[in-house]
């Protein structure tokens, strides 16, 4: 099972890569948190990320679970808690 943060970064990159300012994903991988709002995700991108996480960890998420989080690391912590509870 991949590390949760790595999987989320990879899913975000897949969904938003070309439309995200350069350096955001390398920042995330080197310890700098990023606000989710800065990724400017549309609803479809959010669902792409949600589906990837649901399939990897066999959990159920809603779009609001992502919308409620402020940063990528915060979202990773939320998913980690959900996975631990599952």
């Amino acid at each position, binding site marked *: 099972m991949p590390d949760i943060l790595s999987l989320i970064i990879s899913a975000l990159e897949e969904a938003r890569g070309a439309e995200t300012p350069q350096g955001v994903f390398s920042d995330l991988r080197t310890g700098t948190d990023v606000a989710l709002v800065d990724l400017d995700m549309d609803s479809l991108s959010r669902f792409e990320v*949600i589906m990837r996480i649901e399939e990897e960890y066999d*959990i*159920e998420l*809603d779009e*609001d*679970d992502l*919308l409620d989080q402020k940063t990528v690391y915060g979202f990773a912590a939320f998913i980690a808690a959900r996975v631990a509870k599952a």
Partner: protein
Amino acid sequence: MPVQIDLFTQEEIAKVLGTKDFVPVDYEARHRMLGGHLDFDVSDILAAIRHVPLCARAQAHTASRKRIAKLIAQGTSDMVSFVREDVPAMVSDLLLPGGHDVMAEFVDPCVNKLMSASVGVPIDLGHDTLVSRLFSQAMGISKRRRMNAELAELRRVIAHHLPHLSESEVGDRIALCILGTDALRGTLGCSLKALFEGAADTTEYPRTGVPYVDREALSSCLVNGRRQPAHTVVRARLDQFERPEFAGERNRFFGYSAHVCLGRKIAVDLWQQVHHCATRSLANVTVTKYRLRRDDVFNIPEKFEIEVAHA
């Protein structure tokens, strides 16, 4: 993104729900878009939506309502019998001394029985059923897949018990389950909590499980005194009628004119019976656990436990 405006005045709500200038939002679009883009099966969701009056517009809406109304009428006798003969015993069991899970012991079986009577087939939907959630915008992909599978199973069960029905007649019965299940579970569950806490000030439902109804403006419109563009989504806040000043007028929970809830009569009869039996009981009820499900469409208790003592 279309603009969304909340409506709180009775006049605005009546105008929006009572005219043809505002139509149901396109509930099919998101399922179709997600299913197509992320490549998962939404065929049973889309098939079900085509039979739900709330999802239809203009003449299709009228025709669909007529079919559903006829179906409810066919089941009325069995539903009335259930309310008169079985509900008092169910309330009595729920109010026996000790701890009780209100949804598992009362609300879910009660609604399943009413659905079974109206559909003409034994319906046994679990507490976590997703069949009513096709109105959700926020639900993730796993749940949409599960909902699609549940609707397929519901179709199979109905067709198995009533093999003479056409595909369309089966679809109407599925629509009835979609419309009735969570709306009634939510309204009954939330109202029971209010009743147990002494907040049921009349014999009407004190709470609604359907806090709002969305409509889309077909053309430029005047809402809350301001001109809004076509495709503005207006949200009629039915939950405002929970406020004490609306005691005696809470049938507004069930909507207006051409969009009034088709199950209103039986739902009201059910509550009056529940209210009568519960208030006549000597039980002293304390709500010990209560939590609403996370849901962008319905208010529905996920956890609802009581402790009953008798004087």
